Structure formats: structure tokens, C-alpha cells
């Protein structure tokens, strides 16, 4: 074989089932019962609505910066719905829809977004990791969780989420390579939403697809229409099954779009065209799925309105509940909690001194002192 083109194994694929025009590929259509189909839809709608509320609260100064999910609901819900409660959910920072699917409490997330550590509240039996802000840094954790799941034979798989930008980080590479080498039960869900803040997908890597990066790790990769919840779900089901049966990891590239801003501190008009956004608005995963459900007879005409109202009701009290929780939270000395299992003497001393001074100088309600620290008029101050 003096000079030969090589064939690559494993190969990788693309998948689309319900396309943007609403055309359905019946051969590929998954067999989900009506109830579950409606749950998928409801979760997508709820995530979208919660996003709106968070945005509103952010704009009125009630909460801080957050990363909206709008546009990516199908990718997240399609993927995460393939996991069971014993499986691990390893998010980055934009997984609002997946978080809700896993039973996450919007009140917690609101408390979190209002800047309180107590907003991270994970049930003892929940296999959900907290948000990971440093890009791609959670991917190795997924690999390690999966190693332990395999060694301990828990039968659980791990699903981790990250963005197109994250694929450029060394952590992505190292973690994927570990997972491939040890044939670990992980599903790597890359949400290619076309942008990493202001950097478009094409400038992130010269690779034609992100899915093909899986081949560097001897792992199957599949590029899925990320706005087609059916396709995402089918791909995720296959990947979860593969993982659970001991056949190793898979990478999904969900091709989707970040319809809103990167975070609330971002101004996308600086770097992208309205036209592009409009093009993607016409591919919105929610109406596409609604029409399918109606067509299929899963939902009657008007059912979507009912769901919208139920979703609204489920979110109605979130802000007031969050406010109430926040009022009940401890003072600033809470920051000394949970650094170690046992507080070392020096830290105890620091806390005592801190509390002493706090008692002297802080307002009785223990709010952080306003002082002259007004916020700089940060624009994108959130990365």
C-alpha cells in the first residue's frame, strides 16, 4: 500500500427526521407515546417562557447576567429526555431546558441568578451537577463520572452538554480521548448554536462539521438537526443505549441557533446580521414540533394554548417565591460555609472577625454594603 487514501472507521452520519418545512421521514420517526411527546413539547415551551421571564427580571435589575436558551430547546430536551433519573446530567451554563426536564426548580435557578449561592440546591439523590461556567471544563467531569459508573457497574450513563466554542478547548479534547480510550458510558452533546459570543462557528474551527471531531477519538459522531426534537431524541436514544450496553461513548452535534443574545450583557448587533437571525427564527423548533403534534393527532387544535396557560401558571409564583427564599437567607458570613468538611481554625478566626466587623458596620438587614460600588456600566461584562 505505497500510497493510499484511508477509510475511516467509525463513520459518521447526519440525521434529520422532521425538517424545517414540517416534512416527516416516517421511517425514522421514533415510537414515543402521546404523553411523552406532549411532555417534550411542554418542557420546550416552559423553557422558552422561563427564559422570557428571566430576561424581564434581568432587565429590571432583579437578577444578574444569565445565558438564555431560546432557540435551543429541541437540542436540550431531545437529548436529555433520553436519560433516566439515575443517569448523570453534566451541564455547562445554558442548559435551562435540560435543567427543567431533570426536575430542576425554577425558583432555585432564579435565586441563583439573583446572585445567591443558595440557588444551587441539588437533591441528595439527584445526579445533576451544578452549572459549569468555565467553557468545556465540565467535560472531563463527565468522563470521570462515567469511569466510576462503569467501574461500580451502576448501569448509569452520563450526558454532558457544551457549545460549539467549547470544542476548541483542550479539556474537550482530553476528555473525549479518555472516554474513547476507556470506552466509557458518556454521551457528549455539542450544541452548535453557531456562535461563541461573537465568534461564528466557521471561525472556531476549520473542521467542516463538529461531529467529525469524534473520529479523532475512535468514537461515533452524528450531526443532527438540533431544531428537530425527534431527530435529537433518536440520536440520543441510540447513544444512551450504546453507552448503557457497554459500547462506549458517542458525540452528538446538534445544529441549532442561539436566537437571543449570548448573555444579557451581550449586544449581538455588533457582530451578526438580523437576517441570519430571521432565517433561524423560521426554523424555530417549537412551532415545528407543535404542528407535528397537531398533525399527528397528539394534540388537538387549541391544546397548545392550554399548555401555554399551564406553563404560565407553573411559573407565576417563581419570582415571589424566589424573593421569599432570598429574604430568609443568611447574612454574608454564609460565604464561609462549605469550604471544607470541617472549618480550619484560621477560617473560623476569619469568620469571627468578619462577623464582628459586619455587626458593627453593616446594615441590620445584612445586605452587602452599597458604598460607592455602583456597577460600572458594563456592557458584555459576563463573558
Amino acid at each position, binding site marked *: 500500500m505505497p500510497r493510499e487514501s484511508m477509510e475511516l472507521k467509525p463513520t459518521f452520519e447526519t440525521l434529520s427526521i422532521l425538517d424545517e418545512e414540517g416534512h416527516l421521514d416516517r421511517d425514522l420517526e421514533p415510537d414515543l407515546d402521546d404523553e411523552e411527546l406532549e411532555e417534550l413539547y411542554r418542557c420546550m415551551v416552559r423553557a422558552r417562557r422561563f427564559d422570557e421571564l428571566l430576561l424581564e427580571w434581568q432587565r429590571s435589575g432583579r437578577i*444578574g*447576567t444569565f445565558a438564555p436558551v431560546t432557540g435551543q430547546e429541541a437540542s436540550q430536551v431531545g437529548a436529555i429526555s433520553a436519560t433516566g433519573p439515575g443517569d448523570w446530567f453534566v451541564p455547562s*451554563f445554558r442548559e435551562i431546558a435540560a435543567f427543567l426536564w431533570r426536575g430542576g426548580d425554577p425558583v432555585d435557578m432564579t435565586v441563583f441568578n*439573583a*446572585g*445567591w*449561592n443558595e*440557588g444551587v440546591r441539588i437533591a441528595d439523590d439527584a445526579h445533576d451537577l451544578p*452549572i459549569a*461556567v*468555565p*467553557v*468545556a471544563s465540565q467535560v472531563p467531569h463527565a468522563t470521570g463520572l462515567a469511569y466510576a459508573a462503569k467501574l461500580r457497574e451502576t448501569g448509569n450513563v452520563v450526558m454532558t452538554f457544551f457549545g460549539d*466554542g*467549547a470544542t*476548541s*478547548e*483542550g479539556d474537550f479534547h482530553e476528555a473525549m480521548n479518555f472516554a474513547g480510550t476507556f470506552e466509557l458510558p458518556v454521551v457528549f452533546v455539542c450544541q452548535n448554536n453557531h456562535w*461563541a*459570543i*461573537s*465568534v461564528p462557528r466557521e*471561525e*472556531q*474551527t476549520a473542521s467542516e462539521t463538529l461531529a467529525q471531531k469524534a473520529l479523532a477519538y475512535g468514537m461515533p459522531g452524528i450531526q443532527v438537526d438540533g431544531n428537530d426534537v425527534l431527530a435529537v431524541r433518536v440520536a440520543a436514544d441510540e447513544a444512551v443505549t450504546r453507552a448503557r450496553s457497554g459500547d462506549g461513548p458517542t458525540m452528538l452535534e446538534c445544529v441549532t441557533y442561539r436566537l437571543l443574545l449570548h448573555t444579557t*450583557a*451581550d449586544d449581538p448587533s*455588533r*457582530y451578526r446580521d438580523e437576517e441570519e437571525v430571521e432565517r433561524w427564527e423560521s426554523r424555530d423548533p417549537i412551532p415545528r414540533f407543535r404542528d407535528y403534534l397537531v398533525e399527528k393527532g397528539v394534540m388537538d387544535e387549541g391544546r397548545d394554548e392550554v399548555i401555554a396557560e399551564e406553563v404560565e401558571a407553573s411559573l407565576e409564583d417563581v419570582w415571589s417565591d424566589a424573593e421569599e427564599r*432570598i429574604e430568609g437567607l443568611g447574612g*454574608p458570613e*454564609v*460565604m*464561609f460555609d462549605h*469550604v471544607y468538611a470541617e472549618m480550619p481554625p*484560621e*477560617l473560623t478566626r*476569619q*469568620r469571627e472577625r*468578619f462577623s464582628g*466587623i*459586619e455587626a*458593627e*458596620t*453593616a446594615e441590620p438587614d445584612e445586605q*452587602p*454594603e*452599597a*458604598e*460607592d*460600588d*455602583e*456597577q*460600572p456600566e*458594563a*456592557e*458584555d*461584562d*459576563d*463573558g
Partner: protein
Amino acid sequence: MAEMTMVEALNHALHHEMDQDASVVVLGEDVGEDGGVFRVTDGLIDEFGEQRVVDTPLAEAAIVGASLGMALNGLRPVCEIQFSGFSYYAMHQIENHVARFRWRSRGRFHAPMVIRMPYGAGVRALEHHSESKEVFFTHIPGLKLVAPSGPRAARALLLSAIRDPDPVIFFEPKLLYRKFREDVEEEEETWPLGEARVVREGDDLTVVAWGAMLPRTREAADVLAEEEGAEAEVIDLVSLAPLDHEPVAESVRRTGRAVVVHEAHRSFGPGSEIVARIMEDSFYHLEAPIHRVTAPDVTVPFFARENAYLPTKERIVDAFRSVLET
């Protein structure tokens, strides 16, 4: 003469230097089209093009490692790490190589590069966006680290940093990015790296601070003067590596008392080195133990509690009082 915020002053320095010196390039995440998430690099790409103002893939180790390669091959890269909390991704490039290339090659190569990074808390940001870990860099031989405390300093130091033949970690106090404006001379002004500045004179007490903690430290000194009639000499350290200890020592020998203020964690923080240096050369002049006003040894809390985490003016004044009382 123009009134500028720190962001504008930094931006001004970059425009100026890219214009003057074709070897200067700017690179990092979102520094091009977006002009940087804080707008420090605003407009550069329009003026100098995408060859010299480079939106990179999202990869800190490569940003720093590639910057080093550029610096070795005739360029003067100014790279941005979007937040200092993400600089640890590039720590191996910084420690293993950036700091050592002159030394390893025995002067054949050197690394004229600047690594800019916003640091510090107080802007209601997410986790990892509020760190202040100066010592990670100041403990590495071969690096310089400066932190401006105002717009004028920011421009003057950034110009010097870019022109410096050695790698400079440029710590930008994001809390001050838009907090106040200052006159910044039209004419080019540079501040030598490695020089602290006395910003308030006094004979009762020596106070060392830098970056975001400087303004509140000055205010605290004013409160002290008003309320206690005691005059604190406030030193803006400006340069942590090399540490300009001489003015501190000179002052302490006069005042006999000292306070160090920083927003880094207390233990193994930069304040400890300042204390140790004073101990070594000015011990016999000390009339009271030196106090450190610092953030505690806990991770920066989410933003609702971040102002309590930071040294406040009140805490600083309290420390002044304690040191004067003993």
C-alpha cells in the same frame, strides 16, 4: 486633554500603539468584531484589520502559547484572557514557557508580550469572573505584573507594558473600568514598570494598595484624617512584580505603622510578601504589627454577597484605627 474612563484609556493606548508599531497585534476571544466583552479593544479591527486584531478560537492555552510564538518571531502580541479566572487554563504555558524563554535561551530569545486580564469582584458577574490571584503570577520568576488604579495609570502602564522587552501580566481592575473618569493627557505618557507611587502623603501610617482597592483605600485615608486627625501615607504599589518595596520601606521607617489592603484571599496572598519585606528591612522601625485587610480565605461568593467579601472602606478605616491604637 480628555476625560476618559479606564476602558477608554486602555483602548486609547491600544489604538496608539498599534498605530505606532506595526508589530503590535491584539488577539483573544471576542476582541475583534465585538471589541472585547468590556469594549477595551473597540474599533481596533476596523482600523487595523483582522490580521492584526484576531478573534481566536476559544482556547486560552493556545492564545498564550501562540502569543509566545508570535513574540519570538518579531511581533509584540497583546493577548486578552477574557477574565483572570480563566487564566489558569494557560498556567502551564505561562509558567513553563512565557516566563522562561529569555532565561532558557540565555538571551537569544525574549518574549515581548502582554497578557491582559480583567480581575476582581464587584460587577455582579457570574462565578469565576471575580478572581484576584496575583500571586500565581508574581511568584513566577521572569514575569512582570502591574495593576493600574485609574485611567491615567492604565494608559501609561499599558504603553510601557507593550514596549517592555519582557512578558507583562496586565491586571485590569474591572470594578474601575467605568467607575470614574480622569484627565488623560493628549500627549503620550508612559510610567516605568516596577515603580510604586505615593498618592497621598502622611506621617502617621503607611498604607499599601493597588488596582481596584486603591480608590477606597484613599477614601478610607480621608475618613481617617477627618475623624481622627491622623494622616495616612497611601502608596499605590502599581507593580507587584517586580515589587517596588523601597518606597514602602522608606515610608514605614517614617511612620512605624503599616496596613496592606488587597482583594486577594488573605493566606499566601500578596500582602504577606509585603509584610515579610518590611519585616526584613524595617523591623526595628515598626511600632505596631502590620495589618492586612483582605478578602477571606473563601471562594468569591456569588454576587449578592460580593461586596461584603471585598475589603470595604469601613474595614479599612477600622484597620487604620487598630494599627494606630496599638
